[in-house]
């Protein structure tokens, strides 16, 4: 066998690297993409479920999109908006010559009609709609949006691929949507419930000229067809990825990593760091958790380190930190984090006694839909018992949990999780009004009022510290830490960029 000296091998590798980096993924082929289930809808305004956004972001586009650093940058908009001096009027130009899937050019009437629908239907749209005074088309490619108060998070709201502010052909606007005419690099072809959603390449797609970055920049449909297949069983997704049947398998259980790593050259594990955060919500309206002192005692009783270790095992899949936003991002702050991961049973017991806790049962609502929720609640229940609390786990299926959490009489704490988003006002919903938990206090109103009405990014970053401090003081919810996600792709799927809402433009299939 021919053996090359190591330095020759290195030279060979270095010589081929630039070409490898420059070589664009090949064009053509159909990708089989195993997703976690059937999408709730194909209308991203009708459902905030991530899966709906993941699929339909290929069909519909938004005025702005997040780049790789989570900045909201223009997508269908021509540039950043012109904002009036008082911060209340936004003028946005639409890119000229953008083709809709129906063949005609997109115009400002389409954009205005779509955004009005978003403000009527989508939860985030409704909150923007409350502050909207008027939204009008000014000519073919311009719109003017007037607000009653400055809206600091508007561009992030418009860029988010969940409950999306999608732009569609105005003549297709209906409820429910029956035809899906957008401007994205892929067109809707067919949906067969519980079997697949098929999208095909839109040949006259109008791409941006900037380099691809995150969800933003140049998008190119290299694959002929995207086949999103619902595969709710996580194990089946793993087996399908290992056998080569699926080119992409979304959200695998973290304990599948060794199998994927040993799966041979055909399959590649994808770890997306800081993918999301688990958090537990307290019922501040009724019952024992309406007592802020008891909530503070629980915060001291629990140990997030134990909870995360039990849930994820491998340290590559979690980060133990009390800051709600990762280090290096604009909203990174350590305010209040001295209350994080204390696991001090004695102090917690004293605090609970002082707050007037009389041994009432604490109902912990959780589900096994997400095994990590259940594991963390199990650990937490033990920690609470050690501190003299009387927890009672109520394990139900997800459909029951989402129903029960709407009734303040039947639970005290529930566990859930959210994607790690760049803008605090995007998640968790408890930072807004009316979400389960019903957190509404003067301190919240003050801190968030200032935060939401300030448009200067540097000032907002400072103001977030005050909000995070209020969360640690009033304990409406506890952010347990950050977790990474595991997915897998075929080594043939080239050009794939890991993302919270996986996308498959600029991705090709090797022959």
């Amino acid at each position, binding site marked *: 066998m021919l053996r090359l000296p190591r330095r020759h091998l290195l030279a060979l590798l270095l010589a081929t690297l630039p070409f490898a980096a420059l070589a664009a993924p090949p064009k053509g082929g159909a990708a089989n993409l195993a997703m976690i289930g059937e999408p709730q*809808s194909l209308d991203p305004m009708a459902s*905030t479920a991530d899966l709906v956004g993941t699929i339909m972001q290929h069909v519909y586009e938004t005025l702005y999109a997040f780049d790789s650093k989570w900045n909201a940058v223009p997508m269908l908009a021509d540039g950043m908006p012109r904002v009036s001096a008082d911060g209340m009027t936004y003028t946005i130009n639409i890119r000229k010559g953008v083709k809709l899937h129906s063949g005609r050019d997109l115009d400002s009437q389409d954009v205005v009609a779509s955004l009005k629908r978003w403000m009527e239907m989508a939860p985030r749209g409704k909150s923007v709609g409350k502050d909207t005074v008027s939204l009008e088309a000014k000519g073919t490619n311009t719109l003017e949006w007037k607000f009653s108060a400055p809206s600091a998070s508007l561009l992030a709201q418009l860029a988010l691929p969940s*409950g999306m502010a999608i732009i569609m052909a105005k003549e297709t606007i209906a409820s429910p949507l029956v035809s899906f005419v957008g401007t994205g690099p892929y067109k809707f072809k067919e949906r067969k419930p519980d079997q697949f959603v098929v999208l095909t390449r839109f040949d006259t797609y109008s791409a941006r000229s900037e380099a691809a970055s995150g969800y933003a920049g140049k998008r190119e449909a290299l694959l002929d067809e995207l086949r999103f297949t619902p595969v*709710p069983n996580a194990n089946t997704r793993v087996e399908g990825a290992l056998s080569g049947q699926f080119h992409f398998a979304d959200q695998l259980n973290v304990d599948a990593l060794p199998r994927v790593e040993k799966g041979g050259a055909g399959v590649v594990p994808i770890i997306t760091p800081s993918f999301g955060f688990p958090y537990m919500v307290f019922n501040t309206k009724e019952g024992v958790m309406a007592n802020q002192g008891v909530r503070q005692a629980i915060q001291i009783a629990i140990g997030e380190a134990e909870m995360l270790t039990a849930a994820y095992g491998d340290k590559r899949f979690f980060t133990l930190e009390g800051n709600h936003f990762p280090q290096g991002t604009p909203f990174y702050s350590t305010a209040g984090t001295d209350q994080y991961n204390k696991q001090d049973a004695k102090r917690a017991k004293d605090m609970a006694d002082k707050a007037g806790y009389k041994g009432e049962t604490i109902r912990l609502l959780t589900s096994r839909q997400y095994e990590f929720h259940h594991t963390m609640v199990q650990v937490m229940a033990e920690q609470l018992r050690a501190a003299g609390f009387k927890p009672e786990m109520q394990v139900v299926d997800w459909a029951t949990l989402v129903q029960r959490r709407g009734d303040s009489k039947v639970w005290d704490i529930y566990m859930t999780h959210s994607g790690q988003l760049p803008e605090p006002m995007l998640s968790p919903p408890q930072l807004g009004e*009316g979400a389960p938990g019903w957190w509404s206090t003067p301190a919240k109103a003050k801190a968030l009022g200032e935060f939401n009405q300030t448009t200067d990014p540097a000032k907002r970053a400072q103001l977030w510290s005050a909000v995070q401090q209020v969360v640690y003081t009033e304990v409406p919810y506890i952010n347990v830490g950050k977790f990474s996600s595991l997915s897998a792709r075929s080594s043939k799927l080239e050009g794939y960029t890991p993302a919270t809402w996986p996308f498959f433009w600029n991705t090709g299939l090797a022959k």
Partner: protein
Amino acid sequence: MNFNHLGRSLAGRFGGMLAVLSLVSVLVFILTRLAAGDPIALLLGDQASLQDIELTRQRYGLDQPLLAQFLYWATEILKGNLGQSIFLQMPVTQVLLDRVEPTLSLAVLAVSMAMLIGVPCGIAAAVWRGKLIDQCVSTLAMLGASMPSFWMGLVLIQLFAVGAGWFPVSGYGDPGAPWNIRLHHLLLPAFVLGTLNSALIIRFTRASMLDILNEDYIRTARSKGLSEISVVLNHGLRNALVPILTVFGLTLALMIGGAVVTETVFNLPGLGNLVVRAVLRRDYPVIQGALLAIAGVYVIINFLIDVLYLVADPRVRHG
């Protein structure tokens, strides 16, 4: 043939069929609604506000009293309308029809495999009662009856789909796949179902054949000098068919309505899988429609089996 008796018997069974279906519709409705859970909260996603959820509930009529909802549903059924899926936003009839092909194909393939394995093995075990072959067949039948289908499915996936790469892991083929690709996807799950269900057929065939082979007319047939094959197949099997047909019918009905676990493990878009997903999504119209349809299939198959008894057994035919 006594046609009056036959007609009365069939009419009675038909009446019973309608009574069973009415009872099923009431039970299904009550059980579905007694279960906690909210389809609308799932549909709208995690970020939807409680107010949005309530408004959408009203739009779907889920805020109405249960009796009003039931009466509306029952009236629509009588008109032939099973309603609209909350989650899939399409008519329930359409949703069910889409699932019939995979489920029926899987059931027919699996039952054929079960019969092909079960009947010859059962006959052999009865003919060579107490011999090595009987013990081997009985052990295999016991093993088949006690092995969980999900476990066998996962093992076969590991061995033949992931390991050898001979079969696809899951699904029902790409969009627009031809019948041979669909068949390729069905072979492994059909083998799992067929093998496991053959256990029951083996035991019934063996027991039934043992009863028959001890009858006087079998001795007579042998004494007439008929070959052993002719005695066993023509005189034995023919008379042992009624209980075997019952098991065949029940197995087929069970597979049409209940291949839940196998369909889930292999991610086949069949009726069983649909019911599980509909329950998890609390898609009431689909759960109700699917269970009613499955109960209907059970009842019809039982009815047809009764008719087949008439053909296979003259004693039933002549009352």
